[in-house]
């Protein structure tokens, strides 16, 4: 009945020492793996940025493509029909204006968000506030299945089916345009918005809903006026992350947007996005040409935009968590 106090306190026994060493090794290994993930992202950024740097530093590259030519209005076209922004890199006089591409990305992403955000948020509200349990439990995996559809399949669907449908329904001139690409892109973004909004809405404490019901509010009044505002940071984070996905999506816009570098606010015309330009043109460039460096510059731009959006999205999610679990009582 003697308690082995001495052996428990002392760490000099070999088994304990071995266990401690193993513990330290595993902890170090996990730290290394986590650091590797960060390292890979940093290395990608460094590689892409290194190839894009000549646009800012090399005088030879800057003869054809400098920040002025990339972003500001130029004197292309004729005096009668001026074209301030032209993207035509394969030409006797290469033209590297990024504005049509930026505008194209913006237009398609806008349509995608206008289509996906209401659908995703309302689906999430229905799923958490109105749906019976059996429906909620089958809805979530089915919508998340939509996230698993390869984007090339969505692009193909848009090219063959959606484009004809929209052209017949809206009597459009162009088959491949912003609306077609935007709707297809929205289909890819809906699961992201749905999942994150659903998580945010579920995280709102039941006490909110009970208090609202006790005051006599209907289910919809509770959902719209109490639960949704409480979950707003999370829902907003979902929208921001969806936006980031839409900006970077390549295959859908490559197949469904027509790839015409037009600068206008007409949503029934084709567009050329940043991502589709890189995808279509990078294979042909000779390493080290101006065109090559400009394409990597576009890649860096996309990286920075989506990085900022993702960071902002996770910042908002952290705020939601703090607000609902920390401050409130």
């Amino acid at each position, binding site marked *: 009945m003697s308690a082995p106090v001495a052996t428990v306190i002392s760490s000099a026994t070999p088994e304990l020492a071995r266990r401690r060493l193993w513990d330290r090794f595993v902890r170090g290994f996990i730290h*290394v793996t986590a650091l590797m993930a960060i390292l890979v992202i940093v290395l990608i950024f460094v*590689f892409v940025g290194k190839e894009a740097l000549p646009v800012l530093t090399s005088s030879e590259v800057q003869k054809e493509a400098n920040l002025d030519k990339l972003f500001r209005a130029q004197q292309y076209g004729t005096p009668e*029909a001026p074209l301030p922004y032209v993207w035509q890199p394969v030409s006797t006089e290469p033209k590297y204006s990024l504005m049509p591409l930026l505008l194209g990305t913006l237009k398609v992403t806008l349509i995608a968000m206008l289509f996906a955000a209401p659908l995703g948020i309302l689906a999430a509200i229905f799923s958490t506030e109105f749906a019976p349990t059996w429906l909620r439990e089958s809805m979530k995996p089915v919508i998340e299945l939509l996230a698993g559809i390869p984007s090339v399949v969505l692009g193909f669907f848009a090219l063959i089916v959606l484009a004809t449908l929209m052209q017949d329904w809206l009597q459009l001139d162009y088959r491949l345009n912003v609306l077609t690409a935007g709707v297809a892109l929205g289909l890819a973004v809906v699961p992201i918005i749905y999942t994150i909004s659903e998580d945010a809405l579920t995280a709102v404490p039941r006490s909110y809903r009970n208090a609202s019901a006790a005051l006599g509010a209907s289910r919809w009044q509770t959902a719209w006026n109490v639960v949704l505002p409480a979950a707003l940071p999370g829902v907003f984070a979902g929208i921001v992350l969806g936006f980031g996905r839409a900006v970077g999506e390549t295959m859908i816009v490559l197949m469904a947007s027509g790839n015409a570098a037009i600068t206008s606010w007409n949503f029934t015309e084709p567009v050329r996005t940043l991502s589709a330009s890189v995808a279509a043109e990078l294979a042909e460039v000779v390493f080290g040409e101006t065109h090559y460096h400009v394409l990597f510059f576009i890649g860096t731009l996309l990286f920075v935009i989506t990085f900022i959006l993702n960071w902002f999205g996770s910042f908002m999610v952290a705020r939601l968590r703090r607000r609902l679990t920390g401050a409130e009582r």
Partner: protein
Amino acid sequence: MKTRKGISIGLTFVLAVAVAAVFAGCGGSEPAGDAAKTATSNITIKGSDTMVILGQRWAEVFMQKNSGVTVQVTGGGSGTGIAALINGTTSIAESSRPMKDKEKADVKAKFGKEVLELPVAVDGLAVYVHASNPINELSVPQIKGIYTGAITNWKQVGGKNEAIILYSRENNSGTYVYFKEHVLQDADYDPRAQTLPGTAAVINAVSKDSKGIGYGGIAYGEGVKHIKVKQDDKTPGVEPTMENVLAAKYPISRYLYWYFAGPPTGEVKKLADWVVSKDGQSVVENVGYYPLSETDRTASAAKLTGTPTAAGQ
């Protein structure tokens, strides 16, 4: 305390990996360049989407006759093929347009040899419209006006009162560059021209669009109508048939090329010799392109057997 030691072990490891990666990156930035030089039993052909079917057919027949050799054919556009030739990742570059002087200079700088330009087939660049379009012929200046955006309505060229929807190729395409140089006379395409990844995609788009117009190699025209092209308003319209193309009557016809970094040797030379022989040229017609005329064929064959310093022209 113990965790800190674990982290410092981890950080040292990560640092070591990063340093190794940087050194590996610095050292290995030049491509091998071996693929372009000596004969191996594995030949790569990269380049023109217009020619990819032709290249694949040639590869099939050649591999049947020579069992020790594998020939891999990929598309991607003439520009892609030429870039691959310069980067040293292909033995042969297929191109539906001639190589530019700058590209030839790049090859010379990379490999120290002159490019060998080998015409292997002839193609008529057809202009396609929807089957329901009443237009049957257009002149080259009219086509130029349409594709540069000067002409925007079909009624301006004698058709219905509808907007013209332009379909074009991506800028890595030899067809795009050839059309730009020879039909547009180096003017820019209208920004409204929608770009599609291959002639088949252009045909598909035009077949679905009654207001559309597109261009591409003659081999692909199913479900659309190709129009007669006339040099200007006064000459009669010419169909892109084999006789017209070989007799140089059709205004937009072009050679299809194979490019080598220096004169080919070994298996690659065997392949090239066979392709410009009567046997190889008979395959061309089956695919839908036009074989070289007899004079052109003997000229190409002579290039291959010519002096080692046969310069590309």
